[in-house]
Every structure is written in structure tokens, then in C-alpha cells.
């Protein structure tokens, strides 16, 4: 089972790579200093360094600029929807997206397992992309360390129910029960995320 998932992942990432190149070919280069100024509209929920202030906002500090840009473009285009982010993203131009993505990508994310937990206990379903400690191993996957249980639960259920779609996540989530989702969410939520401020 796991093997087939990994094989499938390989194929999807190849396709993703091609897609991403074309989608981002026109994106301007981001300026982190400009991004910091423009992040006034992000920080109420995501924090100025990307450590979230409200439970449903993910911690975006230290995510790759390409991941942040891709999500913002998806919200703007309506491919991903969220009651708050769809409103915010509608007003963003390409330069603003590139700048705020560059700012948040400048921060450094690291994770610490809680006492008594070891990497071997990490959910095998997730670790190939999101890492045992929730620091992602590839650009297309977000860090999950320290996200709230409710954020992770909401996203996995959105993938499962089709409200959010992704080549890999939609398939993985389709097979998860509510209890499985809660268990995976609690693993990553229990990990402490540290975000080191960019100079």
C-alpha cells in the first residue's frame, strides 16, 4: 500500500513540477522588505513572523515562497476557497503576493517533539511529505508542526469531502475516518513550532 502511494507520489510530483513552472513563469520576484510592510493585512491572523494568532490560521513563517504564492493564487482564482482568505486574496496583485510570500519565506521554522514522543511514532501516512516532526520535506507540502488540531482536522475533512482538492491529499484523505483524522491532527498539533525571526 505504502509503496503504491510513494510510486503515485513520484508521478504526481513530476506533473506538479511542470505545472508549477508554467504557473510561476510570470510571477515577479518578491522583495521581503516590501512584503513585511504589506503583511499588515496578514498579521492579524498569521502574525508578523508567521506564527498564527487565531486557531484556523496556519503558521506560515518559514514556508517556501512558492507554496505561499501558490495558495494565494489559488484563493484569488477561486480554486481554493475560504471565508476569509477568498476575500483577502481577491485584492492582491502578483507583486504583493510575491512580496508577502518572500517575507514569510525568510523566517526560519524548526520543530521540537514533546517529551516522551519519538519520530518512530509519527504517522507513516504523512511523513514522506510532511516529515516526522511536521517540517515538510518538499516544496509542495506545508509544514504541519504546531498547527491546531482544528486547523488540521478542517483541512483533512475538506480534502476528504472535496471542498479542497490536491493531487495527493484528496486521495489520502478519502480513506481516513474521523478518528484517523483526529489522531493525525493531534500528532502534528502536539509538536512545538519555533519560528526564528528574519533579521
Amino acid at each position, binding site marked *: 500500500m505504502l509503496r503504491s*502511494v510513494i510510486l503515485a507520489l513520484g508521478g504526481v510530483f513530476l506533473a506538479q513540477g511542470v505545472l508549477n513552472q508554467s504557473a510561476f513563469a510570470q510571477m515577479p520576484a518578491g522583495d521581503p522588505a516590501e512584503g513585511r510592510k504589506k503583511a499588515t493585512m496578514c*498579521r492579524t491572523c498569521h502574525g508578523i513572523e508567521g506564527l498564527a494568532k487565531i486557531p*484556523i490560521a496556519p503558521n506560515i513563517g518559514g514556508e517556501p515562497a512558492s507554496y505561499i504564492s501558490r495558495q494565494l493564487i489559488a484563493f484569488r482564482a477561486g480554486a481554493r476557497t475560504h471565508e476569509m482568505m477568498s476575500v483577502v486574496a481577491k485584492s492582491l496583485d502578483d507583486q504583493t503576493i510575491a512580496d508577502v510570500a518572500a517575507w514569510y519565506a525568510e523566517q526560519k521554522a524548526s520543530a521540537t517533539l514533546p517529551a516522551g514522543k519519538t519520530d*518512530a511514532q509519527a504517522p*507513516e501516512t504523512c511523513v514522506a511529505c510532511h516529515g516526522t516532526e511536521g517540517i515538510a520535506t518538499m516544496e509542495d507540502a506545508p509544514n504541519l508542526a504546531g498547527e491546531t488540531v482544528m486547523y488540521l482536522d478542517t483541512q483533512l475533512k475538506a480534502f476528504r469531502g472535496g471542498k479542497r482538492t490536491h493531487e495527493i491529499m484528496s486521495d489520502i484523505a478519502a*480513506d481516513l475516518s474521523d478518528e484517523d483524522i*483526529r489522531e493525525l491532527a493531534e500528532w502534528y498539533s502536539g509538536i512545538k513550532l519555533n519560528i526564528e525571526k528574519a533579521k
Partner: protein
Amino acid sequence: MKRLLLGTASLLAVTALAQAQAPVPENLEKLSNFQTTGTSEFTFVDQTGDYADGIKKTLERIKLPDGFKIGLYAVVPDARHMAVGPQGIVTFVGTRKDKVWSVTDRNKDRVADEVKDFAPSLKFAIPNGPCFSKDGFLYIAEQNRVLVYPAAEFFYESPDVAAFNVVKQGELIPPTEESYNHTARVCDIGPDGKLYITLGQPFNVPAPEKADLYNKWGIGGIIRLNTDGTGREVFATGVRNSVGMDIDPKTGDVWFTDNQVDGMGDDIPPGELNHATAAGQNFGFPWYGGGNVRTNEYKNDEPPADVVFPAAEQVAHAADLGMKFYTGKMFPAKYQGAIFSAQHGSWNRTTPVGARVMVSYVNEDGTATSEPFAEGWIDENGEYLGRPVDVAELRDGSILVSDDLAGAIYRIWYEGN
């Protein structure tokens, strides 16, 4: 589920990827039979130190009318809506995460000295809304269930509490309509003894196709039901996302706040304080985005003729949340019978507004007039130092204000001059 967590990673992977697993026994079944679950660990929240001192520093800048004082009552992570126990022993505090906190002031110096998680053997999902009946039954409205905890003020001292379903998991709303946003429920017991629960609808403005389903379930409205879960009915419709409700102790009428449409501009539409004088009223959403401002999406549709407009309009995007009729005697006469309510503060307005406590005076004609009561949680750089969520009243007539950004509960009392 504990078994899985302790098991090997491969067992978890198999379980996670396989379908049709046997349902894992819920601790709720044991608790409903007054059995122990074996859980013994509480999480205690430190009430002193640098963190508490930082909050106290913020409170020095809060402006209040003459004679009023504000102080830190408790450090409570993610503090949302509050329910003060009828015996005055403990205050239960919901969160939009997965914990409910119990806050106890044992030595009665009006500062809490113990904050620990409530019912740690239960798995909560957005347990935002606790409310008490007069006889000590605690109800907690979550994302998609409602449980009742009899004698919660007694049982909370143990990790195992008595707990029963009022609305089973998955039956408050259809699971397909679950969301995170607009899912912070609040509840209250009406003069009819029924349990009233606000149900936000998940969208900024919903599509017309959703209308039939939502009206049937009371999503985007308020429902009421008997405290044993029977007799559910839709009490109010045309509500976008109400996260604050209280019953006027004089008239028995339901009053509630509502959060209005985003993305229409910085200064429209207004926020709302609403007054329901009967069951079955329609409060105008989605035809109106707030007050009498029409939404772009429904501007060509005929609104219902009998729409009830707000009793008081509030500043646009200030996010009016929890509210409480003041029944105490401690505050001066003009505040007695008035409504205290919290504005959480805007999230995407160019210049932030809100993050304050409002007071609204009820007029003879059933409308209300609002003014700021406590403010100063937005600093000179437009940064939030705190975001008030709910207001509750202690038996001595002082009020509590929760704050989910600072993770705190404040107490406001009147000393005179």
C-alpha cells in the same frame, strides 16, 4: 484512539489507510455510565510570571469610565465564551481549539488561582460555547454536537465528569456542511427552559442553492430545543454568524449580535445588535449584508417583507461577539439592565477598529443605543494587544471579559471615585 497512538507506526498507517474500521469506543459512553476512563492527567495553566505580567502591563493602558478598574482575573489560553457556575465556584471557558478550561477563585480574592482543563478524557472539537442552566447543568455547544454535564461545578474536580448527549455528534448540522469558520457556537437557556443555540452559516455570502437546507436546519440562524435534545425547531433565520446571545431578564426576549459581510469596503456594512421579540423572525441576511445595506450577490432579489432590522447598528467590521445583560448592583444605576458586549476587532479593515467592550442601553421602543465602555487594546501602530470575546457577570456584580489573543480573562469592577 490512545491504543493507536501508543502502537507502532505501521499499525497506525494501516488503520489510517484502511476503510471500514470498527468504531473506536468513545469515552463518552463510559462517562454516561459514570465509569472511569483511566484518564488522570490535568493540564494546569501557570497564573504568575512574565506572561501574566505582560498582560497586566497592557491593562494599564485600558480606558474605562471614572470609578471603574480592570485587572487580570486569569491566564486562560484561547479564552472564548464563558459560563459562570450558578454556585459561583467555577467559570467554564470555551475555546475554538480542543479544550475547555475551568477557572476557580478558591480564596475569593477576585483573582483566579487555578486554571485547568475540563473533562480531559473527552475529545472536544471547537467547544466555543458553554452555558449553564440555573440548576447547575452545564451545556457545551461544539462544532457538531452538544453535551450536557450535570453538576459540573462538582464533577470538574475529577478528570472524569458525568456527560451525556443532548445533540449527538453529526446531528447539530449535516456533516457535509461542517466548516471551521462561523462555527463558534454560543448557547443560553431561555425563559421557556429551552436551550437556544446560534448556528453560523459558513460562507461570506452563501449561494441561493443553500437556502432550503440551511433554513431547514437553522444554519444562519438560532435554533432552540428541549434540554433532553427533543423538540428542535428553528427560532430565528436571516442571521449570518451570531457569536453572542443573551436573554433580557426583564422581558424574556432574545438579543444577539451578528457579524456582517466582508469585502464590501471599510465602512459598510454595519455590525448588528439584534432584538428578537418572537419566534420565527427573519433578520435579513443574505439580502442585507448588515443593517439595511444590500449585498451585491442578492441585490436583484426581493427581500422578505417582514425583515427585522437591528436594534442598534455597530461600527463596520468591529466583530461584535459575546454579550450579557447586566443584572448586578455594583455598577452605577445607568448600567443596570444595560447590555455589555465585546468587539473582537476587525481582521481585514485598512485601519483596525473594535477590540473593546461596548455598553448598550435598551430604549423604550425596543431599540438600543451603544457606546464604548472599555478600550485601548489597539496600539498606536495598529497592532492588537488583545481581542475581547465575551462578557460574563460574577455574583458580586463585577464583570469578566475574555480575550482569545492574549489568552486571558479580565475582571472589571466599580470602586467609585
